[in-house]
Structure formats: structure tokens, C-alpha cells
């Protein structure tokens, strides 16, 4: 069930009324069953896998906590991690692995027969696997005690607002909120409603309006001029941000209405002035997961510069692969790893040079921001392209068909609308840095009412009501 579907428009109010009418265990059961219903809307056959992973991590978590012998504890942890990762690998990466192995064998001069299985990719498997795994890891590390109730644990894993596309909420963050009933708070619910509304605007008005322009460019890059391709890349940067952060805003907003706080997942990432800052602002729940459970486990920055660089590259390469079964995602992760390594290596020297040249801070920040944005956009080309060939065609088109003229751009009105929407997003995000001004605005009920009404009218006039999928569902 999609948040931007008519079915969800019926589902959520019905669930919410029942949610308010129930208490304690009944409410937990209701939430769990509603979450499974929400998930089964795509394909009920995928539910047993979710149940299996939930039960596995619940019981392994308990066993790990009770086990005094460190070696056996480690073995239990390995069981959980291996099973979870094996399931993820099978459902998500089987064909990718087979195709890559065949490609390698062919390169070495061997011919391997093609192996094809009809594997259905379970929606949200990357999200709930990481979420569930982090619970066992936290118990193993002694950071949390195991949850005694399977019902509560299953609800934390399957809660429909975050189940299919995040944020990846850690058990230690969500489980305590499931102890006892969350009281309905009008202020928090209003803030949640506003956040969800803005999320719908970002998804339906901005992301879905940009999608056809981006799709056209990446479908056949040689047929387009340099300006159109360049716009296609910029638009994709905005599209994927609004698509994913829009989904997140809806998820977080709905969670707030239900009384849950799921944290923050995006914090105006395109205003970052360094790549490391970008990763503190983009998909925060994933980047912090990778940092805590992968980068730090590999040794982080504690073993010298060279090892730090290797750890950064490995973390970003795996982060890239997490997004999808394609080498283009690995390249995307690799590019970001490279950015982080280069930034870490050169930053001190750059800082000294800029200080010596007395370059104004504003100019440095602006130039850094533009550099980071364009570096991120360049990496998005690989993320969006289905193949390296297409990515190369886009880059080549921008670099060689340099008659950068708007006269050649087709669909000028759609482009104008897209630029207008990008401007709206930029203005809203820029204004949100003025925290005092925002606080004053939020203190005025009329201003809040007007802004909410404006968003609804904006959705009516500017949104695309195609029920388009969210990009991150495929991950």
C-alpha cells in the first residue's frame, strides 16, 4: 500500500480511529496486524519471511543476553547476522551475483550456463533486515536489554509507517516507546500532520513532476542535447531527495500523529559544505547505521590514516551495494567513498591555504557548497543509470554536446514548472535555517493555518496524481 494511494487514504483514518479506541496489548495487536495488512497489500506471500526474521532475531537476542560464554555469544550473533545477510543476499542479490560470476568467468575464458530463478524481491527487505539486525547487535554489545515481549518486538520491526522504506529505526529508540500507551497530544499530532502534508507535497508535487523529465533523459541520452541532460541530472538530484525525504516526512508525520518519535532522516543535505556533512544530513538513519555497525566495527579512524581511508571506502561501497543489485550502485558508493577520502586527506592543507589567502568565510562556504552539490550530482548519474554505458552517455553528452541553450530543451513548460518547484523547495529549506523566524511563525496559529492551506492548494494544482511508486521501495 502506498502512502500516496486512495487505499491508504481509507486505511489510515480507519486504523487511527481503532488505535485511539484501544489500549495496552489490544492496541499493540491492532498495530501489528494493521502493519502486516499494510505489508500484505503488496504480496501476502512475503509475510512469512518477515515473520521468520523477526522471530529469529527476537529469540537470538534473548539467547545472546543469557549466554555467559563469550564464544557461544559470538556464535549466536553469527547465526543471526549470517541468516539475515544470507536472506538479503538471496532475495536481493542472487541474480546480480550469478550474472557477475558469469561475466567474470566469461572474461577468464570459461562459459557458465545461465541460472535463473523466479525470485520475488520482498518490499523493504533491506530496511527491516538492518533494523532487526541492529537489535541483536545492540543486545550483544550490551547497549540494550532484550525485549521480553515478542508482540512488542514484532510491532517495532513491522510498524507500517517505517516498514517498507525506513527510516531504519533502531530497536533501542522505538521499543521503549511501545511500553505503555502513547497519549494523543494535539500539538505533536498537529506538527505531525503538517510534516506529513509537506511530505506529500515533496513527493507528489516536486518529485513526481520531475520524474518524467528525468526518465526521458536517462532512457536515451544520445537523443538529447547537453543542456537537457544537465537539467536531467540536476532534476534527478532534486527528485530523489524529494521522493525519499517526502516519504520520510510522511512516515515521521504519521508516526507523530500516533504518538511515536522516529527521529530525523534528512536535514537539508544539499546545503552541506563538505561530503562528510552531506552524509550527516542524507538518509541519516542509514549513514549512522553504517557508521555504528560497519565503519566503527572495521576500526573506524583508530588505526591510522591508511586504514581509515580503506574503512571509509569499504563502508561506502557496501552502502552503495545496499541500495541495489547493480554495479552502478557500487560505483555510486565508491565515488562517495573517494570524495570522503580525498576530503579527509586534503582538508587540512586546504584550510591552511584558504586562511593564508584570507578568503572570506562566506565565499568558502558557497564554493564548498557548490562543489559538494556537483560532486553529489555527478555520483547520482551512476545511481540513476541502469548501466555504465548509459551513465557514460549522459556524461559524454553533457561534456561534448555543449550547445547549452534552452532553445533545444523540449517540454519547456514542464521544465519551467520543475524549476519553479525547485525554487520553492530551495526557498523553504533556506528559510528553515532562520530558526528564530520559523519559531515566531510557528507560534502564530493563523500563519500555520495559512501555510497548511497553501500546501493543500499547492498539492491540488501542482501535484501529479499518478500514484507513482517511491524510488526507495526498490531498495
Amino acid at each position, binding site marked *: 500500500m502506498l502512502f500516496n494511494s486512495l487505499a491508504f487514504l481509507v486505511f489510515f483514518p480507519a486504523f487511527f480511529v481503532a488505535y485511539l479506541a484501544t489500549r495496552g496489548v489490544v492496541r499493540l495487536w491492532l498495530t501489528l496486524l494493521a502493519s502486516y495488512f499494510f505489508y500484505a497489500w503488496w504480496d501476502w506471500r512475503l509475510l512469512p519471511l518477515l515473520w521468520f526474521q523477526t522471530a529469529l532475531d527476537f529469540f537470538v537476542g534473548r539467547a545472546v543476553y543469557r549466554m555467559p560464554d563469550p564464544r557461544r555469544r559470538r556464535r549466536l550473533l553469527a547465526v543471526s547476522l549470517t541468516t539475515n545477510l544470507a536472506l538479503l543476499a538471496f532475495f536481493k542479490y542472487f541474480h546480480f551475483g550469478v550474472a557477475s560470476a558469469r561475466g567474470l568467468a566469461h572474461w577468464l575464458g570459461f562459459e557458465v550456463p545461465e541460472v535463473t530463478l523466479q525470485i520475488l524481491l520482498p518490499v523493504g527487505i533491506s530496511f527491516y533486515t538492518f533494523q532487526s539486525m541492529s537489535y541483536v547487535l545492540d543486545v550483544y554489545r550490551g547497549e540494550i536489554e532484550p525485549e521480553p515481549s515478542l508482540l512488542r518486538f514484532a510491532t517495532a520491526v513491522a510498524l507500517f509507517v517505517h516498514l517498507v522504506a525506513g527510516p531504519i529505526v533502531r530497536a533501542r529508540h522505538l521499543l521503549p516507546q511501545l511500553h505503555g500507551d502513547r497519549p*494523543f497530544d*494535539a500539538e505533536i499530532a498537529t506538527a505531525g500532520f503538517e510534516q506529513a502534508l509537506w511530505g506529500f507535497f515533496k513527493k507528489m508535487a516536486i518529485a513526481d513532476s520531475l520524474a518524467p523529465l528525468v526518465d526521458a533523459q536517462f532512457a536515451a541520452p544520445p*537523443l538529447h542535447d547537453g543542456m537537457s541532460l544537465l537539467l536531467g541530472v540536476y532534476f534527478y538530484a532534486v527528485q530523489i531527495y524529494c521522493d525519499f525525504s517526502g516519504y520520510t516526512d510522511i512516515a515521521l508525520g504519521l508516526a507523530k500523529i500516533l504518538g511515536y518519535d522516529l527521529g530525523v532522516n534528512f536535514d537539508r543535505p544539499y546545503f552541506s559544505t563538505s561530503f562528510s556533512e552531506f552524509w550527516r544530513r542524507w538518509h541519516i538513519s542509514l549513514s549512522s547505521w553504517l557508521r555504528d555497525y560497519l565503519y566503527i566495527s572495521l576500526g573506524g579512524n583508530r588505526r591510522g590514516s591508511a586504514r581509515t581511508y580503506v574503512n571509509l571506502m569499504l563502508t561506502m561501497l557496501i552502502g552503495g551495494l545496499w541500495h541495489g543489485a547493480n554495479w552502478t550502485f557500487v560505483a555510486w558508493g565508491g565515488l562517495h567513498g573517494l570524495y570522503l577520502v580525498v576530503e579527509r586527506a586534503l582538508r587540512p592543507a586546504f584550510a591552511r591555504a584558504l586562511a593564508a589567502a584570507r578568503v572570506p568565510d562566506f565565499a568558502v562556504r558557497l564554493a564548498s557548497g557548490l562543489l559538494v552539490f556537483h560532486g553529489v550530482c555527478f555520483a547520482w548519474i551512476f545511481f540513476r543509470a541502469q548501466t555504465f554505458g548509459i551513465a557514460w552517455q549522459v556524461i559524454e553528452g553533457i561534456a561534448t554536446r555543449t550547445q547549452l541553450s534552452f532553445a533545444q530543451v523540449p517540454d519547456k513548460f514542464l521544465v519551467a514548472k520543475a524549476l519553479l518547484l525547485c525554487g520553492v523547495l530551495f526557498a523553504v529549506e533556506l528559510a528553515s535555517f532562520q530558526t528564530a523566524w520559523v519559531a515566531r511563525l510557528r507560534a502564530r496559529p493563523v500563519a500555520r493555518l495559512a501555510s497548511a492551506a497553501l500546501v493543500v492548494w499547492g498539492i491540488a*494544482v501542482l*501535484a501529479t496524481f499518478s500514484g507513482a511508486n517511491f524510488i526507495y521501495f526498490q531498495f
Partner: protein
Amino acid sequence: MRDALRTALFRLAVLAACVLAGDRALSALFDSQLLRSQFRFSVAARGGQPANLLVLGDSRGVNGLYAPELERLTGMHVLNLAYNGMSTLVAEAVLRDYLQRNETPRAVLLEVTNVQDAHTLLNGLMCYWRQGPALAALAREWSPLNARAVSAFHLYAYNGEIPMRVLFYRNRSDQDWINRYRISPAVIEDARQASDFEFATRDENLAALGRMTTLARERGIALRLVVVPYLPEFVAHARNWDGWIQRIQAAAGGERIWDYGHAVTDHAHFADRLHLNEVGGVPFAELLARDGFLAFDARAARE
């Protein structure tokens, strides 16, 4: 909790009331602006047009039947009402609404390859649904969900690309609208390498074409059915050209189809596989004039 719920419900009710009031006020404002625009459909909806030559069709009609040149060659007032994706069914509704508010045109030129088009433009024209009964009736039949949405929430009618064009052409005519770029060698090569295909028709479009022919005869309008040029490399792959043209002609009650599908071979005259550009639009209009396509005898048509 009861108080908190009451507060939340009250806020929701106030928001709903404000949204609805704003919807009606803003849509009334937009409606008034819509009818002041020089955009083609606004001109038709405003009424009182003396147009004696009307052009209908999809984007091939927009670019292939270039209004300023037709005006120069015929000396008649021309209104090009063709638009991207306009199917024959939608063209029929546009024509019927036009006839309600404007003088009966002397001739209607219809680019008939739109018999293959789906009716997506119908939703694009949502902002004109309240201005034309034929379009509104078609919307109720072919897009009932949107028809209900528009009647409940008027601003939704302004969702789409066309309202932007209405705004853009507020103070200037859009009748000189034509593709102003040239097909790239890559697109020509792509067309050359493409697989063979068949041109399709939609039954409802063929039926609409039949009704338009009858309507034109009843109202004494000279109806010219034309196929404007395709890129030769593209159209060469069509397996059913002759049969397709015959089918269209049969649907039009035997009316002549002026077939120029293969008439232009110079690549410089094309914007892409389907459309002429500004270089091709002018000589093509001259070709039409030379062939007598633009010579109308209204009385003969009435008879």
C-alpha cells in the same frame, strides 16, 4: 486525551473550511484569468470569434498546419485549436463547444492521424471543463474520477501544463507556436534502425470522425482531412499505411484524405520523427495551397 482530540478535530475542521473557501475564491479568480488569456482554447471559450478557418488535430496538426502561413495564403482568419495529444474524440468535443460560442467557421482542417491517440488531453483540458458542455460531458464519460474531483475541488482543474500556457500566453497569441529546432542525426539514425510497426486506430476516434463529418455537412462547413508529413525514415517502417488511410477514409464517410505522409524528404524540415519544424511548416503550407487544399467553396460544401 478527550480535550486533545477535540482540539485536533477543531483544527482540522478550521483547516478544511479555509481550504474549501480558498478553493472557491482562487478558482473563481483563475477562471476569470483563463477567459482573458490569448491561449488558443481560451480564445475559443471566450466566444465571438470570426474565425473562418479552424485547425484541429494533435501536435502534428500544431506543427504541420502553421496558422500564420495559412492565414497569409488564404487571407482568412485562422485559429489553430490543435494541441499535443488531441485525439479525434477530444477534437470533436472542442469543435462542438467552439460552435456554441463562435461564428460557424467556413472550413475545418483536421489532421486525422490523431485517430490513434488516447484521450489524455481530456484531463489536460480540465480547466476548460466548466466552460464547455461537450468537454464536460466527455469528461464525465471518460474521466469520471477527475470529473468528480474537479466538481468537489475546483482548483484541481488547474492542475497540469495547460494552465501554465494560459498564463504564459495571457497577453500574446500562441498561434505562431511551432517547433523551432531541427531533428538530430541520432534521431534520424534511430528511426532508420527501428523495427517495422503498424499504425493503430481507436474505435471511438473513428466514430468521432464520422460524427464530425456529419456535423460539418449539416452546418455547411468545408471539412479538410489531411495527413501531414512524417520523417521518411520513420514512416518507411509502417506496414499498414494504405490500409490505415483507407480505414480512416471509410470512417469519414468516404471524405477525401489529403495524404502528405510521405511528401517531405528534406530532414531540415523536421523537428523529430513526427513533426515538421518552422523550416518545414512554411513550404508545406505552400504545397497545400498549390494543391488546392486551401481552396474552399463553402456553398459547394453546403450543397
